[in-house]
């Protein structure tokens, strides 16, 4: 007898007395064949979460198991595309179902009709093993997809297609597997495994690698406060917590646009529909400065907006990271943006509540920290099975309730990420963007990356970075006093710190995302800018040391000029920096002599 629906409660469906399913199995629910996943199995009640709206379902409708865990298709056709949380192609859904998302309907994630130009790299008689690259497809102008042998296949090639045009379902390779090396795989006939351009992978299982590498290369973002003060490594993890309106999404967009990863996976998890539309529009129009091609041709979008079913929101994060790992395995550096992980945690909470599980803090399930850890640990810089180097960096936005960082999602995320970019409401109110608070933020990668910056940018880079941080820290403690008694009564050396710090805040930490040059700043320019502000400080120190009044130095105009230099010097002509330095020195000398 087939299994039938017994109970329906929101997205959770119960089945009575069945042994047909395993935990994590993908199932089709009801007449409309809604996609669901088995979340728990017991002798009496088997629970299924449904990835689509359950309205209209009734008890007694059939549930069909697929005998496979919930998986995604991997192959050409991913890049530049937009999917929902369980990798259904939203553009196809629009074509078939119109502007509003209808339920049911089976879609193939990848376009099955498109002919891809395939270069086959293997010949019959050669051996092949899991993870090895056997063909390449030029997928977009900037990305060549490398087709890899599924990890559980190992053996001798009996057939290899000629290079030419193929769809994702055409046979490219046939492999006679070694004994005991392969499990039964779909598509195998008479002990032969057929390899096509696409493969499937369960989203909740990390893809295997050869070994992990130390994270000593920065992910360059062109954002000054990040690169210079709180850098992130390729293969690292970062959290961006912030209340609403502090610019989490804006920061994520900036990173997705400008960071030097090869591939971007952008997951809009439980966020606004208009934001995803914006990403689609903007990324099609913007040009990647490195490849000179549209940004969309290196991006995969996953959109499960806040009004789409909650269970699929929970899955969207895993779908995203699985795609990221797949591209990593080809030897690419992948950056995954998850906006926002709090929505994912809330989806966990919502489903946990429906299951009547015992809640821990703030109603979140007790397994929240372990789920977060599982997710963030899938990031890393690795040697892949085929010997290439690749990385997955994860940047997760966190939306703390009431902008209170002590809530469980922020606190647990802090434990599993190593860079923490705290967004500050007060900075956002002043329209200081990016509103990353320099006192609360940190990056544990800074020390790992010191060598890289000193070698590749300038040997004094990290020294300068520390000096800038020191000035900002000193300003912060001085501000306590200023708030009480005003800045006028401070001694000259402390006034100098306040004035220089103000210039750093306006001219360095604030960055204008809408300005053509300032939106992305190369490392070299970041270094030269730091040099200007430190010169400002050093020259001022000389005046203080000579016990002369510094006030004329402050009013000479060099501070305002330094604060606006980001708009004056573009990203190519750095010789102008010398004029700035000379002017500062002159203003200081005039003060000393006058």
């Amino acid at each position, binding site marked *: 007898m087939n299994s039938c629906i017994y109970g329906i409660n929101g997205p959770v469906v119960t089945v009575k007395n069945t042994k047909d399913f395993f935990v994590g199995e993908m199932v089709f629910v009801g007449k409309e064949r809604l996609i669901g996943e088995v979340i728990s199995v017991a002798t009496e009640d088997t629970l299924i979460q449904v990835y689509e709206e359950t309205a209209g379902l009734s008890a007694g409708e059939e549930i069909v198991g697929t005998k496979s865990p919930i998986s995604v298709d991997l192959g050409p056709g991913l890049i530049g595309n937009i999917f929902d949380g369980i990798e259904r192609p939203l553009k196809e859904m629009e074509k078939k179902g119109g502007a509003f*998302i209808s339920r049911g309907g089976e879609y193939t994630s990848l376009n099955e009709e498109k002919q891809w130009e395939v270069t086959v790299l293997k010949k019959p008689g050669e051996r092949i093993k899991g993870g090895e690259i056997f063909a390449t497809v030029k997928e977009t102008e900037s990305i060549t997809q490398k087709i890899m042998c599924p990890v559980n296949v190992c053996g001798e090639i009996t057939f290899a297609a000629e290079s030419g045009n193929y769809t994702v379902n055409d046979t490219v390779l046939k492999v006679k597997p070694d004994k005991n090396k392969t499990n039964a795989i779909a598509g195998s006939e008479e002990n032969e495994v057929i390899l096509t351009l696409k493969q499937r992978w369960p989203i909740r299982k990390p893809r295997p690698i050869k070994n992990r590498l130390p994270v000593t290369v920065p992910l360059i973002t062109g954002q000054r406060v990040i690169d210079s003060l709180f850098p992130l490594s390729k293969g690292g993890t970062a959290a961006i917590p912030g209340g609403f*309106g502090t610019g989490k999404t804006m920061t994520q967009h900036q990173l997705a646009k400008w960071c030097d990863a090869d591939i971007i996976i952008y997951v809009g998890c439980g966020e*606004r*529909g208009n934001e995803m539309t914006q990403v689609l529009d903007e990324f099609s129009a913007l040009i990647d400065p490195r490849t000179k091609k549209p940004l969309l041709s290196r991006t995969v979008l996953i959109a499960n907006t806040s009004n789409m079913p*909650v269970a699929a929101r929970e899955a969207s994060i895993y779908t995203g990271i699985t795609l990221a790992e797949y591209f990593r395995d080809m030897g690419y550096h992948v950056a995954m943006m998850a906006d926002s992980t709090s929505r994912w945690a809330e989806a966990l909470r919502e489903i946990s*509540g429906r299951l009547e599980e015992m809640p821990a803090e703030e109603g979140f399930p007790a397994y929240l920290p372990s789920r977060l850890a599982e997710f963030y640990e899938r990031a890393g810089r690795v040697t892949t099975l085929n010997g290439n180097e690749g990385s997955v960096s994860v940047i997760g936005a966190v939306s703390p*309730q009431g902008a209170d960082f002590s809530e469980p999602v922020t606190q647990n995320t802090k434990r599993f990420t190593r860079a923490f970019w705290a967004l500050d409401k007060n900075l956002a109110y002043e329209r200081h963007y990016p509103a990353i608070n320099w006192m609360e933020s940190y990056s544990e990668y800074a020390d790992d990356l010191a060598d890289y910056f000193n070698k590749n940018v300038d040997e004094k880079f990290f020294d300068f970075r520390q000096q800038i941080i020191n000035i900002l820290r000193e300003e912060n403690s001085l501000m306590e006093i*200023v708030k*009480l008694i005003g800045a006028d009564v401070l001694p000259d050396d402390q006034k100098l710190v306040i004035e220089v710090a103000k210039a750093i805040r306006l001219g360095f930490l604030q960055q204008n995302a809408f300005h053509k040059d300032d939106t992305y700043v190369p490392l070299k320019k970041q270094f030269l800018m730091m040099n200007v502000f430190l010169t400002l400080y050093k020259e001022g120190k000389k005046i203080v040391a000579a016990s002369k009044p510094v006030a004329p130095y402050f009013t000479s105009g060099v501070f305002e000029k330094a604060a606006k230099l980001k708009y004056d010097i573009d990203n190519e002509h750095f010789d102008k920096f010398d004029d700035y330095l000379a002017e500062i020195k002159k203003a200081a000398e005039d003060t000393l002599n006058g």
Partner: protein
Amino acid sequence: MIKEYVGFSEITGSLVAVEGTENAKAEELVTLKTNSGETRTGRIVQILGNTAIIQVFEGAKGLSLDNTKTVLSGKAMEIALSKEILGRIFDGAGRPKDGLPPIVSETKRDINGSSLNPVSREYPKNYICTGISAIDALSTLIRGQKLPVFSGSGMKHNELAVQIVNQSNVGTNEDFAVVFCAMGVKNDVADYFKESFKKSGVMDHVTMFINLSSDPIVERTITPRIALTAAEYLAFTKNMHVLVVMTDMTSYCEALREFSSSKGEIPGRKGYPGYLYSDLASLYERAGIIKGVKGSVTQIPILTMPNDDITHPIPDLTGYITEGQIVLDRSLDGLGIYPPIGVLPSLSRLMKDGIGEGYTRADHSPLMQQLFASYAKVKEVKSLASVIGEDELSATDKKYLVFGKEFENRFIAQGITENRDIITTLNLGWEMLKLLPRTELSRLDEELLKQYYDEPQK
């Protein structure tokens, strides 16, 4: 044959359990008939085998275990629609409340709607001129946006909503409509809106759905869904630009909490159900524009922050979903400034693409940045002044105090019927900045300063 199920097995709060149902569907609409001839409606919220748990919109008062018959309708809750709804007033469940007969329906729509495919959305870019300086200049409203008003009890959010509705319809030749959705409002408030719309002569393109604070709470949870379904119909079928005013979201959320606890659900923060975010999103996300369709749905939800606390779950979750917020400020209200818009915490996320050259004026964005930065500085100076006294302030800081006062009294404040066009508003902004020394305006470049700061205003 229509099957009737007699009696219930259990009644808790507004929930009743009916046993022995066949083919009951999740979210299905049901009708309950009592022995006394009264009919009520309800919705199936949970199914357990052949037992259906039904939420009764009118509440379960007066129901007993065996005095009622239940009829399943076989479909989800729908509302009848046609263009005739304009100019009409309905109750919270969509029944006529103005004494006129029900409308002749052209179509029927499921009130739950479906989610809009992000691919089909068009990114909102056209700004709506509300004639209110603090909104137009600093948190511009964009067509297709959802921009809530965070208010507190006793502040003038209703007046602000009426002013926005009255003033934002001008300047467009396209069809314009207002859907007004009241949830748990007081009788006086509902009347105020009715009268205001009548007086300003906009009533012929207003549809009102009114659930009063004394009406059943379960009905309140469906009122916004009905209103938004009507709005979507007008916008996407009838190609109109629809402005939806929803007040008060706090009452709606409290109704949801009451209902959730009667269902025995595990509560999240402050007793609100864990799915409050998803539930609110299912309302707010119904704002927007569809590619290739002329109409649009713009939402202005109004909520009163309990105890003026912006971190309370209702404003907090709302702020995470909506595209910005307009926050009313108690201290400005106390000073008698109308509209008491707290400029700093207010924000419109969509404005960056809807202002500037071709939309408003090229200097809009930098001017806005500078006004924000300068006004933020005023707050700093004020707190310093409260410690050391105004006399001890530096000359520049004193200028900031003057700027702050003028800004609040002349820029933010305006008459309840005063309709300022965008150029007037922007020029007024420059006039304010002239109160500050040129060196303080770090966000403006030389060219703009020359053009607007140095030029004497005509």
